[in-house]
């Protein structure tokens, strides 16, 4: 309990420091631009000046209790949406990297509605088709690790020799917990295949849960014959030919399914746009409820602020000035929450690897995953427009209502 408390305190301190740093940076730029604007803008009096902004902030600090509630809820909302976007962008980027090669068609064999292996004969026939540059047979499958009731993804890599294997981070951890540190025994039918752990890879979305071995070993582990392949990688240099070739293959072997690369790529993109979009809509719903809360909150503090606003107005603040004060205050709260949320979200997704959220995105089988940090300015801009702009839009009318209060009435 104590450690958590301290942890939270430290985190809050760090957060406050960051918020202050960003605040001062923004302030500097604002004042610099105001100076330039004020020099040219010879008005009767120039209200949007450094003193005015400072004063608005001073009032904000005095009234901070009123804003704390909105601050935290808004931070939370921005946090959720940013985390979702961080995860989805990271996953998308990794997946798209894997489908980079143009002009590939993946061919799988199906039997009774399930995927089975492709034979040597089928591969040779596909190679004969006009327009096919090359066909690479891939050995790829899943090994059942009964000790933990878990499957490992086995991928053939012919750069490895007979006795080595390369495994991903999460697999290494799993094996270590079963005391397999330098080598591992694959138990297949009546024998055990022992391979040395040569190298450990970082688990990304692609290499997560994967063991690389050479194709002979892979075949043995996956109980495949020499003339069998899990699927074929067909290289078709001319993109326009892909449709024709798929048709030809279908005519030759009706049981073979051809999946061109653009379909794969498009499928991935569609999938992640879909998931992202759903979240957006859920988000809008929560945002609307937040704004209802916000409105209630503003009306609640309305009463106590009336006198203060009246005093300011009696000193010469116009209606526009009061609206400006409220706008500056709320902008500050919104910006602070925005930056705080992005910072927290970055920690959550790229340092803690987004517990809970990753299960929603990638299904429940994914226990060990590392998200590659992808920070896109465009995405941050999107989040800004999605969160800060509606927030500011929501405070416009309440600010105006507050500003037009009759001065003499409020002072009685």
């Amino acid at each position, binding site marked *: 309990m104590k450690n958590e408390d301290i942890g939270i305190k430290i985190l809050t301190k760090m957060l406050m420091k960051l918020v202050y740093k960003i605040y001062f940076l923004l302030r500097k730029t604002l004042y610099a631009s105001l100076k330039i604007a004020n020099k040219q803008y010879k008005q009767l009096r120039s209200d949007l000046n450094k003193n005015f902004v400072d004063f608005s902030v001073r009032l904000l600090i005095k009234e901070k209790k009123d804003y704390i509630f909105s601050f935290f809820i808004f931070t939370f909302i921005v946090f959720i949406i940013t985390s979702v*976007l961080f995860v989805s962008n990271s996953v998308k980027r990794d997946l798209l990297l894997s489908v980079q090669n143009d002009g590939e068609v993946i061919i799988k064999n199906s039997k009774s509605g399930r995927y089975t292996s492709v034979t040597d004969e089928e591969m040779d026939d596909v190679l004969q088709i006009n327009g096919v540059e090359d066909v690479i047979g891939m050995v790829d499958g899943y090994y059942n690790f009964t000790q933990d009731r878990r499957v490992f993804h086995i991928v053939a890599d012919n750069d490895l020799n007979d006795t080595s294997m390369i495994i991903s981070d999460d697999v290494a951890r799993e094996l270590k917990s079963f005391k397999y540190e330098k080598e591992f025994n694959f138990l297949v039918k009546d024998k055990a295949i022992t391979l040395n752990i040569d190298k450990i890879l970082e688990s990304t979305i692609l290499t997560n849960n994967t063991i690389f071995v050479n194709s002979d070993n892979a075949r043995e582990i996956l109980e495949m014959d020499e003339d069998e392949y899990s699927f074929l990688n067909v290289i078709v240099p001319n993109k326009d030919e892909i449709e024709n070739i798929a048709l030809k293959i279908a005519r030759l072997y009706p049981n073979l399914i051809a999946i061109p690369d653009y379909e794969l790529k*498009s499928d991935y*993109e*569609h999938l992640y*746009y*879909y998931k*992202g*979009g*759903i979240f*957006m*809509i859920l988000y*809008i719903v929560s945002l609307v409820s937040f704004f209802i809360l916000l409105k209630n909150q503003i009306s609640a503090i309305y009463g106590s602020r009336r006198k203060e606003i009246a005093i300011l107005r009696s000193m010469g603040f116009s*209606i*526009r000035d009061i*609206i400006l004060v409220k706008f500056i205050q709320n902008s500050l709260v919104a910006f602070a929450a925005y930056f705080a949320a992005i910072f927290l979200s970055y920690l959550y997704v790229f340092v803690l690897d987004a517990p809970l959220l990753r299960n929603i995105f990638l299904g429940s089988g994914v226990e060990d995953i590392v998200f590659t940090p992808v920070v896109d300015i*465009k995405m941050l*801009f*999107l989040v800004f*427009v*999605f969160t800060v*702009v*509606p927030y*500011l*839009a929501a405070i*416009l*009318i309440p*600010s*105006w209502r507050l*500003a*037009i209060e009759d001065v003499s009435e409020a002072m009685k």
Partner: protein
Amino acid sequence: MSIFLLDSLVVFLFVEVVLLLLMSVSMFVVLKILRYWDFEASTTFQYGLEKRNYLVNTIIIFTISVKIILFILFIKSLDDLSPLVPGAMCATGVIGVNIYGNILLVYKIFILFLLGAWMIVNKLDLMSKKFTYLRKKYYLFVVIFILLSIEFILEILYFSNISLETPVFCCSVIFVVENLPFGLEVIDIVKIFYLIFISIILSNYFKKSSMSFMLNVLFLFIAYYCVTYYFGTYIYEQPNHKCPFCMLQKDYHYIGYLIWSTLFIGVYCGISPYIVYSLIDVDKKSLLKYNTIFLTLFVLACSYFVCSFYIRNGVFL
């Protein structure tokens, strides 16, 4: 999968709806003001109307600022759509996907200019101690509101009619020399470009706002063609890459934003004096100075790429 589930689109349409809501609220207020406004009356009701005036002002200033951001977001959404629309390699292909695309783009720019003109009329109205331009200002507002509603409908039509199956043309097909107006050659257009630019500077120096207005409108069209067909090729350093959108991307250091924004702001400063004059008979010639400044920046930026290429390679493309 519905296209409306794309991230940028959801955000874009959501904020558009928020803005429309705010503007509808203003609309109610504006109608009331137009009906009952009487500056000479000393009733509490009239004073209430004056206070409502400030609400409309606030909402519109907010709307204009956000609309500019939304325009940028709109371009980004188009860019995001390009991998999903078969054949489109950047925003250009996506815009051409159905008839609403190009109309929408021009319409949006037009509305931005109109909103900008409203801001100037509003400022002048507030500076006058008797709200002299109030009626005209609000009639203009009603027009703007109707235009904004149409814009929203156009957006829905455009996005819902984007087919994710039918392939579209990309920029190399669309921006072909044959598509230039009057069958002119690229080099002629460039000469006209510089000519009009110099005329604008002269016209601003002599403070002729109606002349500036016409020259600026002309300049906008010529500049569009020039940037797409000539200056753009120097930015991409490829004689066949004629595209107005690609320069907005990271690969070119987002230089497109500088070029297009200086052009738009410049033209805005150039055409507003005359528009304001025709609306309320007040000539705000001070803006012409900014017209010169921004267009000079724009022309310098464009010319820089041509010159730097020539200096580095000794030839033109």
